[in-house]
């Protein structure tokens, strides 16, 4: 899978400081994608060094995959070639932060949690609370394209990424956008980098608008229901009301059970103002007895001054009563993280629950979710697979399929033929559902055996004619993450 020869490795060491080149197999294993390790890894100390490596790779036709802290490297398809892992964690300066302008310019390798800790000092934050939060770099969070529950209020990275500096496939250091909140100069190429999994360019620096952090007293609200229809009906009532919660998600009982029993392996870091911002990282507390994991849950968070919080409490109490919720609770700063930390880390929790977990992102209009859930649950039940899901009010739905052997959540790590067949059937159902509504489906984390099945390959939408053209404009030699996306 790598064309990197010993001569290449030596040449690479001549391009940069040899101490920044990794070639021991054990160290390289850390950079493996779907079990495939690169021929070499390079850890540049500057964007200039990174560009030199890309120019070297372009000249030698070697495949480069950029990475940060590698928490989400398994996202996407198996690379066709993987010669050099370009580790950007050494690019770690906050280059510019104008708190009074609420704008920021930050190197790709800066850890997301560290960045927000800096912003919190000015009562600001970046509402990019994505999975693997405590171990993600900002560059990795953008390249992964994963959203956060806060999308409900703040939108996605597309809405607050103002510009980027990156290295294109020719090794040129380029930029697009700027550092101001409104800008129409040239093409918004930086927005294509969101979710590009390193296939278009090597992100070296990102510019964002920052936001005032929700003021102290961010409140959680959780209501439980016997059916998904009832939970979604309350969600719709909230959407149609004047309230504008920060997050608004519905989770299935299977997801709730994972929340009630599992804690993300990664340490938790405080993410809201008002939370304990001590240096010490903590393990997320488990939810208390107010949590009823046998039910569907509607989870909302909101913030504001005491009058605003009162208004939310009054309205949500009334809505939940009208919707005949089985239970409804308001969670303060000490209780809220137990659920919201897990909501943010839902994908990580699903993967930790079973190595065979197949995780998809399904995107269609929110009004279609009730029907989609009914269909998917029916098919999953018939196949004996556990369906876990988080349904955002924006219409994005994260769906996980777990083999039933992992019903106790922890021992279902084997993917046998029978399970594969069932997963394949569900995958086909998922893509058919999405296609029927002109939506979008993405296979995020799925066992490679599943991705390789002809029946699964066949259902994946053909790349639009544009995607390959865009890819080759950015990367004429197809050296960046070949095969991962395009």
């Amino acid at each position, binding site marked *: 899978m790598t064309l990197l020869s010993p001569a290449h490795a030596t040449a690479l060491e001549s391009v940069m400081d040899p101490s920044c080149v990794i070639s021991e197999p054990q160290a390289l294993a850390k950079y493996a994608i779907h079990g495939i390790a690169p021929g070499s890894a390079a850890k540049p100390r500057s964007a200039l060094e990174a560009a030199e490596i890309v120019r070297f790779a372009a000249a030698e036709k070697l495949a480069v995959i950029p990475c940060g802290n590698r928490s989400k490297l398994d996202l996407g398809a198996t690379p066709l070639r993987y010669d050099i892992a370009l580790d950007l964690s050494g690019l770690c300066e906050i280059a510019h932060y104008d708190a*009074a*302008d*609420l*704008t920021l310019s930050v190197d790709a390798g800066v850890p997301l949690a560290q960045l927000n800790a800096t912003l919190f000092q000015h*009562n*600001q934050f970046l509402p990019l609370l994505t999975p693997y939060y405590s171990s993600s770099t900002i560059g990795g969070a953008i390249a992964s*394209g994963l959203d956060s529950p806060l999308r409900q209020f703040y939108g*996605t990275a*597309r*809405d607050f990424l103002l510009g980027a500096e990156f290295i*294109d496939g020719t090794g*040129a*250091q*380029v*930029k*697009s956008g*700027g550092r*101001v*909140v*409104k*800008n*129409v*100069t*040239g*093409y*918004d*190429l930086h*927005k*294509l980098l*969101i*979710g*590009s999994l390193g*296939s*278009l360019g090597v992100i070296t620096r990102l510019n964002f608008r920052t*936001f*005032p*952090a929700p003021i102290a007293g961010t409140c959680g609200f959780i209501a439980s229901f016997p059916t998904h229809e009832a939970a979604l009906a309350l969600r*719709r009532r909230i959407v149609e009301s*004047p309230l504008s919660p920060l997050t608004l998600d519905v989770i299935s009982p299977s997801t709730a059970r994972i929340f009630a029993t599992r804690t993300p392996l990664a340490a938790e870091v405080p993410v809201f103002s008002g939370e304990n911002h001590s240096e010490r990282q903590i393990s997320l507390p488990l939810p208390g007895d107010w949590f009823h994991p046998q039910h569907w849950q509607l989870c909302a968070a909101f913030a*504001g001054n005491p*009058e*605003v919080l*009162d*208004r939310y409490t009054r309205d949500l109490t009334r809505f939940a009563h009208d919707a005949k919720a089985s239970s409804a609770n308001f969670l303060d700063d000490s209780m809220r993280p137990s659920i919201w930390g897990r909501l943010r880390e839902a994908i990580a929790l699903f993967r930790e629950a079973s190595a065979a977990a197949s995780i998809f*992102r399904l*995107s*269609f*209009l*929110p*009004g279609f979710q009730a029907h989609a859930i009914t269909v998917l649950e029916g098919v999953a039940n018939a196949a004996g697979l556990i369906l876990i899901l988080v349904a955002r009010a924006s*219409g994005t739905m994260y769906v996980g399929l777990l083999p039933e052997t992992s019903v106790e959540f922890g021992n279902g790590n084997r993917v046998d033929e029978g399970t594969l067949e069932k997963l394949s059937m569900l995958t086909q159902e998922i893509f058919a559902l999405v296609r029927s509504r002109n*939506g979008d489906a*993405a296979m995020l984390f799925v066992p490679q055996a599943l991705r390789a099945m002809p029946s699964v390959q066949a259902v994946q939408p053909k*790349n*639009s*004619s*544009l995607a390959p*053209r*865009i890819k080759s*404009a950015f990367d004429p030699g197809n050296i960046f993450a070949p095969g991962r996306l395009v």
Partner: protein
Amino acid sequence: MNALVRELQKLVGQDAVLHRPEDLLLYEYDASVEKGRPEAVVFPTSTEQVSHILQLAAQNNIAIVGRGAGTGLSGGALPRAGGLMIAFARMNRILEIDLENQRATVQAGLVNADLTRAVEADGFYFAPDPSSQKSSTIGGNVSENAGGPHTLAYGVTTNHVTALRLVLPDGEVIHVGTKQGDASPFDLAALFVGSEGTLALVTEVTVKLSRKPEAIQTLLAIFDTIDDASETVAEITARGITPAACEMMDGWTLRAVEEYIHAGFPTDSAAVLLLEVEGLNETVEGQTAAIDEICRIHHAREVRVAQDAKQRELLWKGRKNSFGALGRIAPGNYVLDGVIPRSKLPQTLRHIQQLGEKYGCFIGNIFHAGDGNLHPIVLFDPRDTAQFKRAIEVSAEIIRYCVEIGGSLTGEHGIGMEKSELMPLLFSDADFALMRRVHDALNPTCSLNPGKIFPLGKGCGETRIRLHAANPVAAA
């Protein structure tokens, strides 16, 4: 009558093609100071017709420029050199309104305000609100990534577009994005918004519809110095308060507007801020009090709160018609669109004033202060060539200053042909090379809107040649 015009007429009807010089006069202008006359204008009514027109144009090697309502301020919808103009005025249908999911799909030629009109009775609106919204089209808004006063809180056009139907220069019809908004493998809709008609022609747009807020409070804060007004904006931003809108007008502009609109603006003040706060009753109350306090800290002479919808509308009418009001004072004006970091607002306004004095030009300021999006308006008499030259010089100097302090050439009007030669202030040869490869991947022969965005010679490799080599319509 030439062959292409006849073919176009066959395709879209006699009355949907203009080609006589007297009919084309109107189409050589937009709202900028640029001019450029097309050789023919065609008015399609469907995506299919647009596709056929582009195929015909491709066969005849004719340059194309798309046009919405021609309200653009950068010459984006004017041809550099002849060619065929595709005007979207007759593609103005609303194709679908889905209130449950807060989406609308419209043809590109729909007037911005008409979409809000169609959904406001149900409590919805389309958030991007350029001052031209009563005439500008949504397709034009998409092409220039238009903004407006309320984009401070709600974002510009790109934040409200989820899917596009497009026609590529060879006539291929494509969809990008999804109604919901997520798209893989790449977020292509985000690439086309703001691409100024140089990559494809937008024929249909799916947008988000926003819900009207429960409460709106409009404030007018009156200041005796411009410095106090701009310090107020800087502090509102720094305190993390995001009003729905935060607009500034200097005293000189105010007087012109007041004579025209009679909105009740104080004519003896140095600057006013027009601020709007939206949301829950409880939120609006708190934010209004906070803004009032900040205004007073910075010596506001008075803070007026609109008492009802009528007062609010009058204040906004004054703001949105301010450019028109200035038209009564000087025969020509040049509206700039620079963007600066909001923390640098006070020093920038002082600098603009000094530049005006240095060049002997009158420069008014009406702008989106909360976004740092300036609209200095340089007044001149176009018949006085020396004056016109000074106006252009001072404008370029203002824009250069915006870039120097970390800002940008344009916040919402686009580069078009007006600012293309200033692009090297922001971008390197390597940046242009990548932009050009993206351009060429979609518009390889440079037939769509040639000579825009890129400085001449840096765009399509053959821009200069093609402009003249492309067959004139008459020869086809």
